[in-house]
């Protein structure tokens, strides 16, 4: 247990610059978004913006279009903006494929030559992915509240704490879901690039499937296969409660990924 703790601390130390930089960038993005939303609010430009939306975007947003095209909606954009989701998922995939990287460079030989059970490698990786993902979202939420205090115009309605937390939790679960998928692939791989690339391609395919299904009815039949289907920020923005089903599905995928990683890593040969 002590050895596993040491390995976790070492792994966290190695990624600290990446994690802190990404976290600060994401938090800064929240500040920028709120600053921009405040400017639009002051100039009364939200109605004009809504009118400029192309039809496909209206179809995508559905009934949430009015809510989205508001100060509160733009503030929430930081939780489902493509670059933000991509950064979080990329970070989770990177962390989740740490074992593949350690196998690739040969460091795993030195670790496992010690009296350390293989399951600690996966437990360490899970802890790393969960802690870092939670830290990222905590920084984003902190950025949101800091931004609101600094840049929100007087009298404008802020998004509720419940909405911000719901978005953060659902986004966090989506991030962990891809972390679980990447971990399962990484536990059986010799190369981080292969594991990360495969997980990244899967994520891209799943995202496109969800995106297409929102615009093209026939694709709706298989859209349930995409984990992105279980993160619907527009529902949350319109005031709906955080759907337990979505969290359960994302949580289940995550757990299956973690379990598969334990099994695959325990059974594999370590060779680089």
């Amino acid at each position, binding site marked *: 247990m002590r050895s596993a703790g040491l*390995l976790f601390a070492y792994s966290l130390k190695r990624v600290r610059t990446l994690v802190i930089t990404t976290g600060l960038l994401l938090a800064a993005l929240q500040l920028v978004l709120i600053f921009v939303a405040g400017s639009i609010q002051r100039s009364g430009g939200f109605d004009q913006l809504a009118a400029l939306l192309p039809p496909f975007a209206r179809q995508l947003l559905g009934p949430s279009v009015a809510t989205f095209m508001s100060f509160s909606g733009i503030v929430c954009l930081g939780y489902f903006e493509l670059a933000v989701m991509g950064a979080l998922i990329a970070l989770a995939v990177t962390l989740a494929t740490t074992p593949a990287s350690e196998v690739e460079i*040969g460091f795993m030989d*030195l670790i496992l*030559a010690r009296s350390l059970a293989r399951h600690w490698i996966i437990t360490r990786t899970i802890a790393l992915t969960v802690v870092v993902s939670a830290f990222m979202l905590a920084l984003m939420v902190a950025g949101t509240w800091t931004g609101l205090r600094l840049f929100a115009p007087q009298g404008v309605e802020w998004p509720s704490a419940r909405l911000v937390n719901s978005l953060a939790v659902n986004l966090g679960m989506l991030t962990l879901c891809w972390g679980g998928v990447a971990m399962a692939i990484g536990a059986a791989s010799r190369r981080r690039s292969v594991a990360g690339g495969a997980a990244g391609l899967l994520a891209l395919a799943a995202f496109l499937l969800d995106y297409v299904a929102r615009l093209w009815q026939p694709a709706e039949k298989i859209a349930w296969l995409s984990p992105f289907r279980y993160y619907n920020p527009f529902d949350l923005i319109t005031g709906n409660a955080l759907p337990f089903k979505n969290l359960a599905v994302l949580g289940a995928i995550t757990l299956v990924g973690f379990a598969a990683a334990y099994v695959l890593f325990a*059974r594999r*040969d370590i060779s680089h």
Partner: protein
Amino acid sequence: MAVNNLSLDAIQGEILGFLGLNGAGKTTTIRILLDLLRPNRGNAFILGHDCQSDGLRARLNIGYLPGEMGIYSDLTGREVLNLLAGLSGHVINMSRRGELQERLEFPTSDLRRRLREYSTGMKRKLGLIQAFQTDPMILILDEPTEGLDPLMQESFYKLLEDVKQRGRTVFMSSHVLSEVERVCDRIALVRKGELVLLSNVEELRKLAARQVRVHFAEDVPGPRSWNLKVEGPLGPLLRTIATLPVQDIEIEEPKLEDVILKYYRDGAK
């Protein structure tokens, strides 16, 4: 199949040299001992513990030096040593580490540098320090002198002698036959994954042919200088030439390398 029908024991307190050509199965065998690879059948044991089913106990008292030190280059030497000692579950013995640094001429200031600044030899020394620093009962060393300069090789051989005197067992793979001849008590030779030789170094040396040069003072049948390879006792040869006008005789010590190379060549055929 990388390793097949390989059966050997290392005796406590000995240095067992594990030899073979590239791809013969040396590293595969080491990886099975460390439970990095799982054999289809058969068992490996360390201090009575099955390396696969009881691997944690088997690896509790091992020091391992891999053929290549796979370490993230952004770590400092000290971080590497502390981490690997910590993962072993042992308390870091700083005086032991200091002694190893001194013997391998590895200054403490170098431990503060990142590995990306290390030369191949320095990485090798760091690898040796991490393997020896917890004073393990068993040392598994894969090509330990690869990248070390001759002076450091000498220091390493003395280090091996010391650990052997303290009852530690060393299992080392090597390509350097002179090194094996010098430091090992026994030799195990693998060829195409199978053990083809397991012998005491002294006994093996006796199998080697001696190079004998005889110079005659006068003409004899054949040339006036004979270059002979003699396997076994020299008595019959000495009796034969005793009647001839011998001016000088040179007898070279038998070389272990000759025997081992013969095994290698036979394998090549």
